[in-house]
Structures are given as C-alpha cells and as structure tokens.
C-alpha cells in the first residue's frame, strides 16, 4: 500500500519531467511557426492606432479588442453556451423555489457567527467595487465583462453561505425571478449592442455590418471611440457592461437554486411523482 503511493507520486513527477524534456527537445513535434507571431504583431500594431483608421479598435487592451472585436463572434457564442448552461440548470430545478413561506422565519438566527457576518458586510462592497472596476475598465486594463461578472458573483455567494439562503431571498429580495430578469437584460444589451452599428447605418442610409465597431473601408459608420473625453472604444465598453450583468446574475441564479434546502426540493419531486 505504502509502496504503491510512492510509485504513484514518482510516476507523476516522472511524467512532468519527461514532458518538459520532450517539449524542450521538440519531441512532440515542432513548436508553432514563428510566422504566426506576425498576426500578434498586427493586433498589437492596430489595437490603438488612429493612423490606420479602418483597422483600429481604439482600445489599448489588445486582449479585450480581440475578444470582443477581432474575434467577437467567438465570444458571442461563448455567451450563448453559458446561457444554455443556465437554462439547463433552470430546467432541472423547475418548480423548486423559495418564493413563499418567509413570514414566520427568524432570519437572523440562521447562518454563521456574528464575527463572520460583520466581516462579510465589510467585504461585500469591496468585492462589488473591484468587480465593477474590472468590468468597466475592461477596454483599458486587463479584465472584462466575464472576469468582472464572475468576481461579482462571489459577493452573493458569500452572503448565501454566511447569512443563509433565506436572508438573500426574503431580506435582500434577490429572488430567482429578479436574477432571471437581470440576466435577460444583460443578454438583450449584448444583442442590441451587436446590432447598434447596423441600425445606425440603416437609419442614416449607409453601408454597415452586424457586430461592427469602428468604421471600415466599405462601411464608414461606427460607434464613437470616446464619450465626453474618456475612451470607451465603441462597442467594447457596452459589451463588457452587459456581459458583467449577464454573468453575475447567471452565477447568482445557480447558487440560489443550489442552496435551496434539499427537503424543499424533495417535496416538489414527491409531488411530481404523485401527479400533483
């Protein structure tokens, strides 16, 4: 038994070392062609460069520029995958809800100790502030809608665990329905932003594309790169903002559903079996 454990550990270390050696001596095939790096150089050259007006994204953050502009469709479909995952969770948990029965509960008796609750009260505004900064500065500094949204989802998660589900649902009024509404609002925002330039082009009567951000060679219209003197990089700011809401609300929704006591879930499932 003991020898087996040593063998397991040794084989893991040996695997790591051998993989490193193989990669160093190109044992797993050649490394990617350096010519691929020209593409990266092109992104870096055009990402914030007013001298190439039909190519630039007007965002100093090349990663967000790639995620929401150069390769924006990939991110749109990623958002769709996340949307479907949440729909799946909702479909499995259908009918299981905490929306009623909160009147007679002593909510303050649930949850962890007073020390933990006070520390959480101090932490939650900080988490929300940092996550909003990550999301709203996504076009300027590392970060973006998904990063900010998932960081923001940690705040309701802490409250759920430390103050109990009843506190979140009955005191803070963060029910499943309000989370679904917030999430739909975010997704509608992403949808509208991807059509914004096209609608603008149709109204003015010039050529424009779906998912277009800055003016292109045969479509001279685009969203403004700056508003009131501060850089918003056209669609990037709005995509990050709406993605922030969609992701934060989506995660919070799943956590509210997961934290509903098993007894409640059983009641609903039993009801289904008896045909109620």
């Amino acid at each position, binding site marked *: 038994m003991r020898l087996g*454990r040593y063998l*397991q*550990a040794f084989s*893991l*270390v040996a695997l*790591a070392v051998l993989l490193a050696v193989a990669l160093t001596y190109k044992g797993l095939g050649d490394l990617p062609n350096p010519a691929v790096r020209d593409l990266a150089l092109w992104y870096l050259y055009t990402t914030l460069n007013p001298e190439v007006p039909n190519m630039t994204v007007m965002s100093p953050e090349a*990663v*967000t520029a790639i995620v929401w502009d150069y390769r924006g469709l990939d991110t749109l479909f990623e958002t769709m995958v996340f949307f479907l995952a949440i729909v799946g969770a909702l479909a499995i948990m259908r009918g299981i809800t905490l929306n009623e029965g909160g009147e007679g509960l002593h909510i303050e008796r649930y949850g962890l100790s007073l020390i933990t609750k006070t520390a959480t009260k101090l932490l939650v505004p900080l988490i929300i502030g940092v996550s909003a900064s*990550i999301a709203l500065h996504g076009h300027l500094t*590392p*970060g*973006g809608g*998904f*990063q900010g949204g*998932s*960081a923001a*989802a*940690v705040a309701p*998660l802490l409250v759920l*665990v430390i103050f109990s589900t009843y506190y979140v649902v009955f005191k803070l009024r963060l029910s499943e329905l309000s989370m679904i509404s917030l999430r739909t609002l975010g997704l509608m925002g992403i949808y509208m932003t991807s059509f914004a330039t096209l609608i603008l082009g149709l109204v003015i009567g010039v050529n424009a594309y779906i998912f277009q951000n800055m003016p292109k060679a045969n479509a001279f219209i685009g969203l403004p790169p700056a508003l009131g003197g501060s850089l918003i990089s056209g669609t990037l700011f709005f995509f990050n903002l709406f993605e922030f809401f969609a992701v934060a609300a989506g*995660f919070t929704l*799943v*956590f509210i559903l*997961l*934290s509903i006591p*098993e007894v409640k879930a059983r009641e609903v499932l039993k009801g289904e079996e008896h045909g109620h």
Partner: protein
Amino acid sequence: MIEPKLISYLFMAVAGALSLIATYLAVIEKDLVKAVIYSAIQSTAYTILFYLLMAPDIALVYIPVAVGLYPAVVFFLIKKTERFEESG
C-alpha cells in the same frame, strides 16, 4: 547578479511543483471537502503561472472561478450527497 527573467522562471517552477503536489493530494484524498481545498490550492498555483506568463486577463478570471465559484458548487453538491469516498 541574478537576472529578473531567471527569478520569474524560478517562481514558475515552484508554482508548477506546488500544483503537481496539490493535484496528487486531491486525487488520493478520500475526504471530498479536503480534496476540493487541494484543488483550490492547485488553482492558486496556476494563477501565479498565468500571471508570470503575462496573461493577467486569465489570472483575473481564474481566481474567482477556481477559488470561489467552482469549490462552492462542489461544496453544495457534497452537502447534497456524501462527504467521504468509499475505499475500494
């Protein structure tokens, strides 16, 4: 004089080794709550690696997802099922 690049490589090696140890412990651990904590330690090591490999965007999303949200989901599921893995 040690070059800054060498120090960064050294940190990467330490983080990589830490992640390997944490992964091994997470796999062999029978108490699933402890296994999730080992998994979070492994993710922290990966976050250091991502940061040193100049991917701060990934590091930013990796911290809340791998240390906050993912362990939370697994903890909820452990609470709904069983905490200890049966030997055999």
